[in-house]
């Protein structure tokens, strides 16, 4: 979806279709969300097949929906693609589990992903990113969005314990989960695409665990950790290992690439911001926060109301599905002044909710932040300037706001 909104237009909120994939692939959702925040903070939509959902778009409401599991449960599913079908992995997959079980599992997994734990990876990540950027500096056209899809696998592969030969296949599968209707990733119907990808990914982790058990190998990787960690009093079940392993692969692969390409695109459109960051590398951490806010790669998450709940001037009935639009919350004018301005010196960029909010706050956030910081440090140091070299293309997905193509030409920086 376009991240810099186009010209203002008339929005009829009664006719808005938030499930229209064209809106994200070639349209302009921000003016729609602007209108929703202003006039319909609790928006209701019924799909042609009878499924219905409520949307919240204001920062405070998004935080409330994502943050309070007593009112809004994750145990019936959290991804809009599955609206109306209760999650078969509820209570087993960490993201589809409420506290208290969720707290036990998240603490166990998160212990290996804290900022302190991932800090020792910085040198290795820097080398990986230097290798990633090398072909971009050779003078030709470099499709950053296409290449960036592989970046998380390059960075997290060794950390997860996944051999390089499997990366491309896993990246393809995780992309199928997030954009099952994008022609780049579709196999047959949307349902078939999702099932193929889920099946292959869960089976991949299951086989990985089986092999480790058979050989007794331990490599200290994150998947290894999943096999040995205790959550509460007991180890994770095999089903939990397979599903959480899947979830970690997914979380690692599908968001960071789009934050990379979307932020670089924003910098190409605003050379003065690029120059500012280049002149003062200490701005990079804030550039990363603004990039996260700006791109909001995980565009939304879903919850189900536990009981009738008053919110945003309306009522969500018990069992109703609620979509919390993170992409909109991060442009809420009550929170961020001039929200549609990309500003690497924004003083409260860190209040962005791109990683979510509350108990399900992204467990990989410290690693993502580290990767993004190192990426932009290296990019600014190596590239004197970056120009667009073709039309950017956006991902056909209402779940992940992303790009499929961003052709760029980079010039080597002469004076370091």
């Amino acid at each position, binding site marked *: 979806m376009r991240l810099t909104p186009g010209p203002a237009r008339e929005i009829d909120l009664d006719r808005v279709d938030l499930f229209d994939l064209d809106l994200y692939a070639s349209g302009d959702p921000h003016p729609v969300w602007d209108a929703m925040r202003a006039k319909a903070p609790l928006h209701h939509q019924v799909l042609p097949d009878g499924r219905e959902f409520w949307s919240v778009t204001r920062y405070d409401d998004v935080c409330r929906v994502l943050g309070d599991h007593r009112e809004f449960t994750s145990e019936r599913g959290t991804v809009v693609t599955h609206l109306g079908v209760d999650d078969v*992995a509820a209570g087993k997959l960490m993201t589809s589990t409420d506290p208290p079980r969720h707290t036990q599992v998240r603490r166990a997994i998160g212990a290996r992903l804290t900022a302190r734990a991932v800090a020792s990876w910085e040198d290795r990540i820097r080398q990986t990113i230097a290798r990633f950027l090398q072909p971009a500096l050779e003078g030709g056209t470099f499709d950053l969005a296409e290449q960036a899809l592989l970046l998380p696998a390059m960075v997290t592969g060794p950390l997860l314990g996944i051999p390089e030969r499997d990366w491309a296949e896993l990246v393809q599968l995780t992309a199928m989960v997030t954009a099952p209707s994008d022609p780049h990733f579709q196999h*047959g119907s949307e349902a078939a695409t999702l099932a193929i990808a889920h099946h292959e990914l869960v089976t991949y982790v299951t086989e990985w665990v089986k092999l480790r058990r058979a050989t007794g190998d331990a490599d200290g990787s994150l998947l290894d950790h999943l096999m040995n960690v205790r959550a509460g009093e007991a180890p994770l079940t095999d089903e939990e290992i397979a599903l959480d392993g899947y979830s970690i692969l997914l979380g690692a692969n599908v968001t960071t690439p789009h934050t990379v390409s979307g932020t670089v695109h924003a910098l190409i459109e605003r050379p003065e911001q690029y120059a500012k960051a280049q002149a003062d590398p200490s701005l990079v951490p804030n550039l990363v926060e603004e990039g996260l806010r700006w791109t909001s790669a995980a565009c939304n998450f879903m919850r189900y109301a536990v009981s009738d709940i008053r919110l945003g001037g309306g009522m969500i009935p018990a069992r109703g599905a609620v979509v919390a639009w993170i992409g909109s919350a991060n442009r809420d004018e009550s929170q961020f002044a001039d929200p549609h301005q990309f500003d690497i010196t924004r003083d409260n960029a860190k209040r962005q909710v791109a990683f979510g909010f509350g108990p399900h706050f992204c467990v990989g956030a410290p690693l993502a932040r580290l990767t993004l910081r190192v990426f932009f440090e290296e990019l600014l140091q190596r590239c004197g300037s970056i120009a667009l070299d073709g039309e950017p293309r956006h991902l056909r997905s209402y779940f992940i706001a992303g790009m499929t193509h961003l052709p760029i030409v980079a010039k080597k920086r002469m004076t370091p």
Partner: protein
Amino acid sequence: MESEAQAAPSSAPESLVREISALWGEYLGTREVGADDDFFVLGGNSLIGIKIVDRVTEDYGVELSVRDFYLAQTPAKVAALIEQGRTRT
């Protein structure tokens, strides 16, 4: 995408189609599954698919391709894939 499933004629013996329909019924919690019923319309998902594909390997000694299984989508076509796998080995 060209898939083997789409190219496969429904050449499986009727008895095999019936067995596969029954196998699906076991995991989909539906009493009657027809030869041409759609996996996803019956409420099928990947966790059920994993169990069915594993059972096919155990019971028939045929390793179905995951892609072909979901693109086939009906017991008749899955039976044809199994038949194909058997004759190939």
